[in-house]
């Protein structure tokens, strides 16, 4: 009964999404306020029904209703409650429902927070979002119905994949989806701008906070996913260039370009058609990611169900959404040209250069991800593209991005003086090179990769410090606290995110240079030493949880003579799926993680143990957190609200005339 209720609510949501897609659009074209006004209630009603639908599915999982096929395949009566709940989206059908729910949340957020948009513009934005929503809800209903019954019901479910029974998986998919789907708002704004031909500073100002918030979610989602891979897959890597990771990384790269391009469009009115193209591109890549994950055209660790009908449906959706928007772009964008001119040496041009570089990086990642498919389709054989390709293309392209990232904030809009800029930044540049070499010597690892990484990190951090200093020096008379307070939060956002990149680069460089690990056979009382740490094996005991039995080893860790911690890696056997899982034990520190996983049992008392030291890996996550925090600061800048209020009457007046 509950499942049917959920199914019915989903059908009603589809109907409302069609209303939302159609009626306000017609209203905007005929200039009928009453029709335009339908958008908001339709969007809000849709959210209500999607929440009901999602709640019904969750209920089936929590109560272990195994007459629902999805629950039977992805849950188990003995699974802990939290993983019963996350099991709802740990599968194809449920994750699509989550996709639709996130889209609906974003849409309602637009109706609430962008109340001051001109009515006709809002109607078009909601219309575009309505069509996307209709596409996804119908995809869910027609090819991937999560409420399908399994009659007669089975006595016990097959349980959620043990890899997904992990705290990281609780928040990774929702964060990632909020990010993916969030770009739909920027996309809808872009389409509405193309439809109306209205693309000015006010438009950019409306789009910016939405884009930034979506980017924050995506940043956090990717970071959590990477952290999950690090400790759950049990081999200590944190990024694999797997097609599905790339699928989330490409919108992030293009989204980063979009944020910066929007800044130029707002301040200078330039890059208009480029900004629109990036907005379309970022969302298109989100859709492409969904296609890659859901259709099985590319083999990947993440690929769940493979069903040609589903692949075809998403492809059709992809072609419709992206195709129509690009046709619209080709038709309308030529009229959008304009904006101030700028010199080769200016903040405008350095942002443009970074934009282009980020787009090229995105293209390179896309090429690497789809290359096996291209060759296969052209009958040139089957290959797989691995990390070597990505590292060889990604690093050289990102180096100038990081270099320019520090330069741009020092430059003036429109025109700046090259010798002056060089004089300003020369000392920081020299210092960074020295720091790069010095630190590489100190850690005794002088390779070009290490030196380059450390130099870039130093460049970002020293450059950022100098930027803050010169910003504070702008008002020499005021007290330091007042000067700090005088800086708008958008500026802090930029500064924090850039510092985050520096911290991130340190983490990546150090882990690549100094990582060490060893595999040892250990039995009771035996010790093993790696670096400054001594591990004492204290035997293995059996541990029982509700849905798995584990062999849990106990290792005392000494640094010198001092007992540092006790670590307990496990080898779990999940009852329902009979899948063995390694659960690593981590000791997280600011300068290094200790990472221990338990291997096979060799005889009654001897076990294989893998010991790793992961230097500075926390800095990778810290960098991501800073970037996300920067995004939050940037999006919360007061002037978005203030200017929205101020521009609304003016915009309304323009519309009326």
């Amino acid at each position, binding site marked *: 009964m509950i499942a049917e209720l959920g199914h019915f609510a989903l059908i009603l949501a589809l109907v409302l999404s069609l209303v939302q897609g159609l009626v306000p659009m017609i209203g905007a074209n005929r200039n009928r306020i009453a029709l335009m006004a339908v958008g908001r209630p339709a969007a809000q009603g849709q959210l209500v029904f999607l929440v009901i639908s999602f709640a019904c599915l969750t209920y089936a999982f929590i109560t272990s209703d195994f007459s629902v096929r999805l629950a039977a395949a992805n849950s188990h009566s003995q699974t802990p409650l939290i993983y019963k709940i996350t099991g709802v989206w740990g599968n194809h059908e449920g994750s699509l429902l989550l996709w639709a729910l996130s889209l609906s949340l974003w849409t309602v957020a637009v109706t609430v927070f962008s109340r001051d948009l001109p009515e006709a513009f809002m109607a078009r934005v909601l219309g575009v979002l309505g069509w996307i929503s209709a596409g996804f809800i119908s995809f869910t209903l027609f090819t991937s119905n999560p409420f399908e019954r399994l009659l007669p019901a089975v006595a016990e479910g097959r349980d959620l994949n043990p890899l997904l029974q992990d705290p990281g998986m609780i928040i990774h998919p929702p964060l990632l989806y909020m990010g993916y789907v969030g770009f739909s708002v920027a996309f809808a704004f872009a389409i509405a701008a193309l439809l109306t031909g209205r693309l000015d500073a006010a438009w950019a100002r409306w789009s910016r906070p939405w884009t930034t918030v979506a980017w924050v979610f995506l940043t956090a989602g990717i970071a959590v996913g990477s952290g999950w891979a690090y400790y759950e897959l049990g081999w200590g890597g944190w990024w694999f260039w797997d097609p599905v990771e790339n699928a989330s990384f490409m919108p992030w790269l293009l989204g980063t370009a979009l944020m910066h391009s929007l800044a130029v469009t707002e301040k200078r009115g330039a890059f208009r058609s480029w900004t629109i193209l990036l907005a379309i591109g970022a969302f298109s890549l989100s859709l492409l990611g969904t296609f890659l994950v859901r259709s099985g055209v590319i083999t990947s*660790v993440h690929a769940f169900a493979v069903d040609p009908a589903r692949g075809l449906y998403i492809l059709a959706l992809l072609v419709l959404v*992206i195709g129509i928007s690009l046709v619209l772009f080709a038709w309308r964008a030529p009229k959008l040209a304009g904006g101030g001119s700028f010199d080769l040496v200016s903040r405008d041009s350095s942002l443009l250069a970074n934009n282009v570089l980020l787009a090229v990086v995105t293209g390179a990642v896309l090429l690497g991800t789809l290359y096996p498919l291209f060759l296969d389709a052209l009958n040139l054989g089957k290959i797989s593209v691995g990390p070597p390709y990505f590292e060889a293309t990604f690093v050289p392209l990102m180096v100038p991005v990081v270099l320019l990232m520090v330069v741009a904030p020092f430059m003036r809009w429109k025109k700046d003086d090259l010798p002056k800029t060089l004089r300003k930044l020369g000392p920081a540049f020299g210092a960074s090179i020295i720091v790069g070499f010095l630190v590489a010597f100190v850690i005794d690892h002088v390779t070009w990769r290490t030196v380059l990484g450390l130099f870039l990190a130093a460049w970002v951090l020293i450059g950022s410090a100098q930027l803050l200093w010169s910003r504070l020096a702008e008002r020499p008379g005021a007290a330091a606290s007042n000067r700090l307070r005088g800086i708008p939060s958008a500026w802090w956002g930029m500064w924090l995110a850039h510092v985050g990149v520096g911290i991130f680069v340190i983490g990546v460089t150090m882990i690549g240079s100094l990582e060490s690990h060893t*595999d040892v056979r250990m039995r009771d009382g035996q010790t093993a030493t790696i670096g400054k740490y001594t591990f004492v094996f204290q035997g293995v005991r059996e541990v029982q949880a509700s849905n798995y039995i584990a062999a849990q080893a106990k290792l005392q860790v000494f640094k010198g003579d001092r007992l540092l911690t006790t670590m307990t890696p496990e080898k779990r056997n999940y009852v329902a799926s009979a899948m063995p899982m390694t659960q690593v034990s981590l000791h997280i520190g600011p300068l290094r993680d200790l990472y221990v996983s338990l291997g096979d049992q060799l005889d009654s008392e001897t076990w294989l143990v893998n010991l790793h030291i992961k230097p500075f890996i926390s800095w990778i996550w810290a960098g991501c957190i800073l970037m996300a925090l920067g995004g939050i600061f940037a999006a919360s800048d007061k002037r978005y609200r203030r200017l929205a209020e101020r521009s609304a009457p003016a915009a309304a007046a323009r519309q009326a005339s």
Partner: protein
Amino acid sequence: MKAKFLVPLAIFLALAGFLGYGLTLNPSVVPSPLVGKPAPAFQLAKLDAPQETFGVDDMRGQVWLLNVWASWCVSCRQEHPYLVEMAGTGGIPVIGLNYKDERQAAIGWLRAQGDPYLATVTDEDGRVGIEYGVYGTPETFLIDKDGVIRYKHIGPINRDTVQKVLMPMIAELSRAG
């Protein structure tokens, strides 16, 4: 309508064409000229005991699987539980061909993931891989009692592959002769 504004559309349509065509392809089915031919001979060092070697001839008279894998291969991790399961239920010996890998990394990987292999040999420079026409890892060959390749699977195997493809063929080949 200026031509340059059509470029994104053109790129996207080409891409969509490939994606559409990709849907009709199955990344794990590749016609192999090797099916029906004798498995190329090799004598390679064992992973756990480099001084000993192991070759195709050692498996003569048995139906067996040759699984090409590497510790750097993400999809290998995905198929591994099924190999462990097949090895555990007896039935069929699986030989591992550790492809373009480092010995220590490979040993560590097997310790962490479980070792389903009767024996693992190392193909560090990938030369044997070339003779077997290996495109990428993982790949799995089914070889009969006379040393003839009967089936080749590209990409990770899963429960369906095991139950619907491999097991019936293995049963049939074991009965024959």
